[in-house]
């Protein structure tokens, strides 16, 4: 039987909780290490190592460096491990100053200056983005069902209708209560970025009436391009479905400055970083 391990770095355990909802692996794999559910103190040799969470402190760095060589294949799981995730909001200079200021006071693992994705530390064979990836995606990763295919972008899986004649002239705000069922959230004035976001999640958020915040990162057609291309693609979609002035769209895209997952665009496109090849991203 093949073995796998789950190493949790700085994260919320949401990826692990999602994995626990996908228990079909139990027949085909032995879970050798996952501190959340097993008492075992070291990562043994395994076929597959799933790493969740970003590299936030010295202990994360040490644990990741020690575990990776034990594995036949390393998979980065979830937005934090791939592009820093929500913790990257702490990488803004003004915030960093505040919360790195007192780090020497603690007799605890020291924080690193920035929260880093795991491929900045060890080679990664595969990426499974999502905050968190759905149980279905975990199952696909572990059981590799033949012919498994996902929608290219979130819109394809959302299936809300895009209308030509329902054109708001301004944004409705971040989210406002009850929404029209079956009609595209952009037509209803919401800043939804499902059109540029990788599919595969089955669009739970926009289908439930909440704009897509882009947790699965860029779609295949955008993943190897710089963030400006990404932004202009979102802008073009919103202009096509609304009469909102271009300046206002730009302002909205920038005004929630770096919040939600828009910040991860910069990680995917930092200068000097080799783009993650789309073949490696689930």
């Amino acid at each position, binding site marked *: 039987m093949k073995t796998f391990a789950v190493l949790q770095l700085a994260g919320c355990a949401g990826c692990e909780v999602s994995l626990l909802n996908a228990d079909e692996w139990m027949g085909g794999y032995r*879970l050798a290490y996952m501190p959340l559910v097993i008492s075992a103190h070291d990562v043994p040799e395994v076929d597959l190592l799933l790493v969740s969470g970003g590299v936030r402190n010295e202990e994360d760095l040490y644990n990741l460096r020690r575990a990776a060589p034990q594995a036949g294949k390393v998979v980065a799981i979830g937005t934090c491990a791939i592009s820093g995730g929500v913790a990257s909001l702490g990488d803004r200079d003004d915030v960093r100053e505040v919360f790195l200021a007192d780090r020497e006071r603690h007799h605890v693992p020291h924080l690193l200056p920035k929260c880093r994705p795991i491929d900045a530390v060890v080679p990664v064979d595969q990426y499974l983005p999502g905050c968190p990836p759905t149980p279905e995606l975990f199952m696909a990763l572990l059981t590799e069902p033949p012919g498994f295919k996902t929608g290219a972008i979130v819109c394809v899986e959302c299936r809300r209708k895009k209308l030509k004649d329902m054109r708001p002239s301004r944004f409705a705000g971040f989210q406002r209560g009850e929404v029209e069922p079956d009609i595209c959230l952009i037509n209803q004035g919401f800043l939804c970025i499902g059109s540029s976001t990788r599919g595969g999640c089955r669009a739970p958020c926009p289908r*439930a009436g909440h704009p897509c915040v882009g947790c699965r990162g860029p779609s295949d057609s955008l993943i190897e391009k710089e963030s400006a291309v990404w932004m202009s693609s979102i802008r073009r979609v919103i202009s096509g479905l609304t009469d909102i002035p271009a300046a206002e769209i730009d302002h909205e895209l920038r005004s929630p400055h770096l919040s939600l997952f828009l910040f991860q665009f910069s990680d995917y496109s930092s200068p000097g970083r080799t783009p993650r090849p789309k073949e490696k991203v689930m």
Partner: protein
Amino acid sequence: MPALTFPLSRIEGHARVVIDIEGDTVTSASFQCTEFRGFKHLVQGVPAEQMTVIVPRICGVCSTAHHIASVKALEDAFGIEPPPLACRLRELLLLGQLIQSQATSLFIFTMPDRLGTSSIFDPVQEKDQDERSQLASRALAVRRVGTHLITVAGGQFIHPVKAVVGGMTSGIEPDAAAALSHELAAQLPQACELFDLYIRKSLELSDRIGTWGDDAPAYYLSAVSDSLPNYDGDDIRLLGPDGSVSTFSARSHRDYLTYEQPDYSYSGRTSYRGEALRANSLARVNLTESMGTPLADGYLKRFRAAFGRPAHAILLFDLARGIELVYAIERAIQILATPLNEEDTDIPYTPRDGEGYGLVEAPRGPLIHHYVIKDGLVADAEFVIPTVHNIKSIERALMVAARRYITGKRIDMELEHAVGRVVRAFDPCIACATH
């Protein structure tokens, strides 16, 4: 001065226990949380209305509680009240969270301590097949019904999105409610069966080790009401060792609770006038008259007959979790039998600057979100986390265990197991505690 360090597993997040010994005396026991992401700081400057989807990421286990606490804090700041249907839907969300969290704690985190295994996924020995057949998949199935409840009521089960300022994005269609109710009803006997096994194994454990753990009286803290466990509570209640109860609002928590920041941990630590506090399942069961659902009340009656009220021994936290698991499934079935799509789920509102508090009773105890909003952006945020209230009590119980198993120059190897049992009884969540 020698120190014993115990890494911890089968809890949420990164923590360790350090016990200091001087000569042959245990001098201290500390519970050290070793992770930190800095949510209090990193949400500064974020548009306030986005908090409802950012803060669930504090913790993937407790995300629903953060989601709703956040919505309530914003509603408090904007001066609005959601319609009654939205409150019912939010109660469902919190019940889903409770099922998921208590089933995880009982069957995945602490059941192995009762069975003497390293995890619930260990292969089952031939002689144990009768009682433990398919244990892991049965436990995961009970847990999963909680996540399905969160998915239907909240849109996404790890980081839900459907609770929004002013209400919920939609109700639940009758078909979906009926299917979910059916699934809950199917898992209810399963949950009881697993809990019965858990009770039997806990009795065997307490016989073997000769104790239910630290049983000195303590202060108990909870946001549930005195008649029924309403998890969407409005006030916090504090039960003293003398039986007195004080009630205070989230807004005035600093008048009652004292916070300190030890050097050895990224988590803070709360006390009531220097005394240890306890939150979580045992606090709720001690502070609530009855559960209000038939099977859960049956368990509660047996629990009180055996251990009294208030009950104090720490391994009773685990048993109280089982009572709540049964309650949450029963209560969810009751709510799903009412119409959930016939009224408005939200009210219109206008955002404004100001200050807001949001309180919910999370699985680990009362959770408060407090935001200060300027120009529509978060100018300051405070997260008052239930696990933090328990840290002093965890350390007190660890001292009791350490003194029991460290005698003279001898350390009983049972100590390592005892440390795990003590910590897991409080089911601490480190991602939340340090945020």
